[in-house]
């Protein structure tokens, strides 16, 4: 026994005995390890959290933007404040004499004239909205009378000036001040003075506005807007929806409405009004189509469904190893699908954001030579198997995969060369959250040129990989297993610039097409690998206008 420790081959015996000796660790070890290794699936959890957080932020941001935006109607309607005295004078001159007595009751403080600068304008509806009483009362207290001067225009009555707070929500409040000293117009026939009065337009933004305080006390249903898109109403013991969206007779589209009715005291009515637009109706100021066409572009929002095949320009792999030459195949395999929200403002600038998803299959043609060795081989069930680490060039990084090779008979000699050929297919998933600005230039009423740029928060996951059509050059050899790709997540901030043409198919729909270039701006190193997702994309987008009639 003592001889064993003194033998010359003592170390050799130990080495042979213990080199590949296997002991089984406890089952719980992997559980502990999963939370610590950098490639663990817990990364996926953080990815999901990040994506959900991003969606929430963008969603809440969009909702906030919409909810704080002005009702588009305000951009198309003027309410002209006039002193009672002047209004009555004008009224007397109007053909609807039977209404005169009401006007002269002096129950009101201000008279307003509705002055639409849009088409499909229905002043009766605004009169109803203006009158916060019941419909019947509103009909009595509001007056609609066509006037000969500055047509079209209407007259409404405000019982209290404080009710202008409601007017503010759907119209611009202005005052018209007559210009006393009119300039003479010089022509070939000589100098003349205009026969009609000329008015100066004065904004009334500083007009003191407060909400009515006595509505609830009177027990009458009240309705007023929150941020212009939410209306609430309260009334005791009602089981019906109190607030209803206003729909103008000329509306071509139905407002987006969602309401809840309760049997207690309140109901909530969020609604999104669509704005009337016009390229034909003369505006109050006399400017015609040009100004209205411009107005049409104020704060227009579009929902865009996008399809974007692209070609990466930052592939690490060599062309002969990675099939970059078959660009059509790559285009087919690397298309993104996106949902965008884009905005057009009056001045041409706008905001854009959304979500992009892509699922790619990328092939690597493997051709490697490995050197056979009996060292560290495993004998199982009469067969010899051995693991080899082979280097696979993925699209964006280099990595090693384990290939387990089985031999039916150990016919190979030590040091013999084995050729491994096959296709290694990566499955990649991409999720991107772009946010940027755009500038849109109207080339003609049907065609817009769009310049866009911004940042993209990108995640690319490598969930899978598979080896196919493998051959080893010998029938007695076969690949029995390739280690699965470890799940990894690459996160980066990319920047993009793009150019596009949008063709308006109708008021609601338009098509957009144009190239876009995306370049990695900053990425987070993952397993010491810096990846770059530079790519050229061709965007095809179908736009739906959320504001148009």
């Amino acid at each position, binding site marked *: 026994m003592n001889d064993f420790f003194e033998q010359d081959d003592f*170390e050799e015996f130990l080495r042979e005995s213990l080199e590949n000796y296997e002991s089984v660790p406890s089952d719980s070890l992997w559980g502990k390890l999963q939370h610590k290794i950098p490639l663990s699936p817990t990364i996926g959890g953080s990815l999901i959290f990040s994506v959900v957080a991003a969606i929430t932020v963008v969603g809440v941001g969009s909702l906030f933007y919409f909810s704080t935006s002005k009702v588009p109607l305000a951009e198309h309607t003027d309410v002209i404040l006039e002193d009672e005295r002047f209004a009555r004078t004008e009224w007397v001159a109007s053909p609807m004499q039977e209404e005169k007595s009401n006007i002269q009751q002096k129950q009101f403080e201000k008279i307003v004239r509705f002055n639409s600068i849009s088409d499909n304008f229905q002043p009766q509806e605004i009169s109803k909205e203006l009158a916060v009483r019941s419909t019947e009362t509103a009909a009595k207290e509001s007056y609609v009378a066509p006037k000969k001067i500055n047509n079209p225009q209407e007259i409404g009555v405000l019982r209290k000036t404080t009710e202008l707070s409601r007017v503010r929500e759907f119209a611009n409040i202005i005052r018209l001040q007559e210009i006393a000293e009119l300039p003479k117009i010089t022509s070939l026939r000589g100098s003349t003075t205009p026969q009609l009065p000329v008015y100066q337009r004065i904004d009334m933004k500083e007009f003191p506005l407060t909400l009515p305080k006595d509505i609830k006390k009177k027990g009458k249903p009240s309705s007023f807007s929150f941020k212009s898109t939410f209306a609430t109403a309260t009334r005791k013991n009602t089981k019906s929806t109190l607030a209803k969206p206003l729909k103008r007779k000329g509306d071509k589209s139905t407002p987006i409405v969602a309401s809840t009715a309760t049997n207690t005291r309140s109901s909530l009515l969020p609604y999104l009004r669509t704005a009337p637009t016009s390229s034909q109706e003369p505006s109050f100021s006399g400017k015609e189509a040009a100004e209205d066409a411009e107005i049409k572009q104020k704060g227009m929002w579009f929902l865009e469904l996008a399809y974007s095949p692209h070609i990466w320009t930052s592939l690490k792999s060599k062309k002969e190893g990675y099939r970059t030459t078959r660009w059509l195949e790559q285009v087919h395999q690397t298309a993104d699908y996106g949902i965008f929200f884009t905005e057009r403002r009056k001045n041409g600038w706008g905001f854009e954001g959304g979500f992009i998803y892509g699922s790619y299959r990328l092939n690597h043609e493997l051709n490697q030579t490995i050197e056979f060795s009996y060292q560290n081989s495993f004998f199982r069930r009469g067969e010899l198997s051995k693991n080899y680490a082979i280097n696979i060039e993925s699209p964006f990084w280099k990595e090693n995969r384990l290939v387990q090779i089985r031999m039916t008979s150990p016919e190979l000699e030590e040091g013999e060369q084995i050729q491994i050929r096959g296709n290694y297919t990566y499955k990649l998933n991409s999720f991107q959250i772009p946010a940027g600005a755009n500038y849109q230039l109207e080339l003609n009423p049907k065609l817009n040129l769009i310049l866009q740029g911004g940042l993209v928060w990108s995640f690319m996951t490598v969930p899978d990989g598979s080896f196919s059509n493998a051959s080893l050059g010998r029938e007695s050899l076969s690949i029995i297993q390739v280690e699965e790709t470890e799940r990894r997540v690459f996160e980066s901030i990319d920047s993009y610039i793009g150019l596009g043409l949008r063709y308006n198919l109708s008021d609601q729909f338009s098509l957009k097409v144009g190239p876009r270039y995306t370049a990695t701006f900053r990425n987070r190193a993952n397993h010491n690998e810096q990846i770059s997702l530079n790519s050229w994309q061709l965007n095809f987008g179908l736009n739906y206008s959320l504001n148009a009639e």
Partner: protein
Amino acid sequence: MLYYQYKNVLFSICRRYAQNNEEAEDFLQEGFIQIYTDLYQYKPHGSFLAWLKTVVVHVALKQVKKERKKKQTFDKEVWTRLQQESEEYREKPSREILIEMIQQLPDGYRTVFNLYAIEGYSHQEISEILDISVSTSKSQYHKAKRTLQRLFKSGATALK
């Protein structure tokens, strides 16, 4: 999967460097963390398993250097198991017993013994790895060998 394929071989290595199995699992855990971190830097020049072993050995050495303050005590359970070894193994200890005997060695002895007798490092290399002199490495190894001899002899004697 990498872990399930190699955990047993690597755990066996960890056991040789650790005082007990719990500590060996800690070594293995740290070893796999290191492996996963360095996996994509691996250059396929040699055996992948050899590379894994190298990583684990280095991690184990690092852990040994960091944590060695406990007083060495002989494990009574191992002593009992030694006594229960069958006649078959009286001439040459079983691999399991060998590992458990190695675990009983003092840290310095065990580390040098593992590196020289099993991993195949030279005393010169061990001196560089452990930052000790070559003569110390040789001395530690011989003492380790004698201790193992004594341990096994004691166990076998007890068996009789």
